[in-house]
């Protein structure tokens, strides 16, 4: 894949510098540094409890960080710097920052009382104040992209897990984010439904979307990822070209992990 060389020259969209996160006494993230360039697909792998999901959630402030800095598009995430001090962002500013970042969850989290179409147009009409007609047109385009036009007027409970996750992706894309976060998007799916979601993600990556993907799908990392980061115990153990790391891991912990999941 030639994407790697292209994206290496692009400017950084996400900069994570020395990030620490504690849950009480529990030190979950122990100084994470990471850069994601525009158009890059950055795949995070690691055993459960390694902090990869927590790191992803810090990027859009579903978790707050205790030390370090996260920048998205050269904007400090979650704080304002004034007079050499950090000030917490207020709810309005946080919401504004989140609009630029789409997120897809392991458990889909579609709104069950809304149809597929209503799920997708909710944020554009409520947050971006788009007209209903415009939002619907856009929603139908997105549904076509994820292959679910015929499910527009169904409720989430009427869809398979794979279809629900594709709707969740369409819902996130409806806000035209610059960055998409995927938190184990296929972990809650039956094995035969994983492929349809990964295909949508693959198509999205090919269209140039910047993505950070927490996953256990090593094949996806190898095929679609531009960088692979292996985390364990709250630190980045190894990071680099996915094909190289998977073929030739340098660290014992990486080797051990890959041996178990491959």
């Amino acid at each position: 894949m030639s994407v790697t060389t292209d994206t290496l020259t692009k400017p950084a969209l996400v900069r994570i510098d020395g990030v620490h996160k504690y849950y009480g006494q529990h030190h979950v993230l122990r100084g994470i540094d990471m850069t994601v360039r525009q158009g890059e697909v950055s795949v995070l792998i690691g055993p459960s409890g390694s902090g990869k999901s927590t790191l992803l959630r810090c990027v859009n402030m579903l978790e707050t960080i205790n030390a370090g800095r996260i920048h998205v598009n050269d904007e400090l995430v979650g704080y304002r710097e004034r007079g050499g001090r950090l000030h917490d962002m207020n709810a309005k500013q946080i919401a504004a920052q989140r609009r630029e970042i789409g997120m897809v969850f392991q458990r889909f989290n579609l709104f069950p009382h809304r149809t597929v179409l209503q799920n997708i147009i909710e944020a554009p009409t409520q947050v971006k104040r788009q007209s209903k007609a415009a939002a619907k047109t856009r929603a139908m385009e997105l549904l076509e992209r994820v292959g679910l036009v015929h499910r527009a007027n169904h409720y989430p409970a009427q869809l398979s897990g794979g279809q629900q996750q594709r709707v969740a992706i369409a819902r996130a894309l409806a806000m035209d984010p610059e960055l998409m976060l995927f938190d184990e998007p296929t972990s809650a799916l039956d094995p035969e439904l994983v492929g349809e979601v990964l295909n949508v993600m693959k198509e999205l990556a090919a269209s140039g979307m910047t993505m950070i993907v927490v996953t256990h799908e090593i094949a996806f990392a190898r095929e679609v990822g531009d960088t692979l980061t292996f985390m364990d115990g709250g630190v980045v153990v190894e990071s680099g070209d996915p094909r190289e790391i998977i073929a030739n891991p340098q660290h014992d912990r990486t080797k051990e992990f890959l041996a178990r999941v491959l």
Partner: protein
Amino acid sequence: MSLIAPARSTADTDGSGRGKPQMIQAVPVRHPGRWACAVVILAFAAMLAQSLVTNENFRWDVVGTYFMDVLVIQGIGWTLLLTVLSMVIAITLAILLAFMRESENPLFRSVSWVWVWFFRGTPVYTQLVFWGLIAVLYPKISLGVPFGPELFAFDTQDIVTAFVAAVLGLGLNESAYLAEIFRAGLKSVDNGQMEAAEALGMRKSRIMWRIILPQAMRIIVPPTGNETIGMLKTTSLVLAVPFTLDLTFATNGIANRSYLPIPLLIVAALWYLVITSILMVGQYYVERHFGKGVDNFVRIPVDKATAVKPAAVKVVTAGDSNESGVKEMEEKP
């Protein structure tokens, strides 16, 4: 790839080539105990019905005379008005109190907690008497600068009439109970809903109103229906204010004048039963509305912009190959 599952029993469709499977024709379990119980229950019911008809102390003729009496019908009107207004106040306050209790703002949380503590912790009868006496405590209500000049002043008894006192007393007391019901409902909604909406850049107030509350209503409606029916009968306590036009007071008045308490109690009871039945029908529709997408899949009217003809369905993604894995849910009528 038909989405309508064919009935499996039709000949030769199971692919085994063995034709129609032999359907099970099992003998059902017998329930002689049920039959015996039913006979006993029916016998008791018949005896009760017979006594209702033959026992002259019930004075059904008096029940008939007063059932549609003007005072009774007016009483029903006032009782309904008290119930509806106090529940409207209670529900409005309860939503506010539940949101405040779930808020990040410690001030809101404390205010909500103290409100519920006070109004739930003191008897409704006492509260009603208190509202009736408010004009004694505060003869004048004035609007003005605190500790400074006053702008408007009213006599309390002109504003807080017996009816207003009754509605306030019932509504504020009920708001405390409903606040806890609403809070339980809000808590029942999965955290992922809040996170998903937050990740879309929605603000908390809007998320609560548009995402969390509508889902919580599934849990909230049944106990709120309970509370409404309870309120219908609690309105008979308004004589504490005193407010003296409601159904119970009206039938009691007639009973005292005619020395016939039993038939007039029956009149009141029958009317409460009728109104409760109507409320239960209403609750059924409210529950159905908020069960959309979870308990029932009443399809929303397909609008023209998004209507898709089956022939026009294009499967774009390569991965969409397993339509057959989709569980088609049955649509309940």
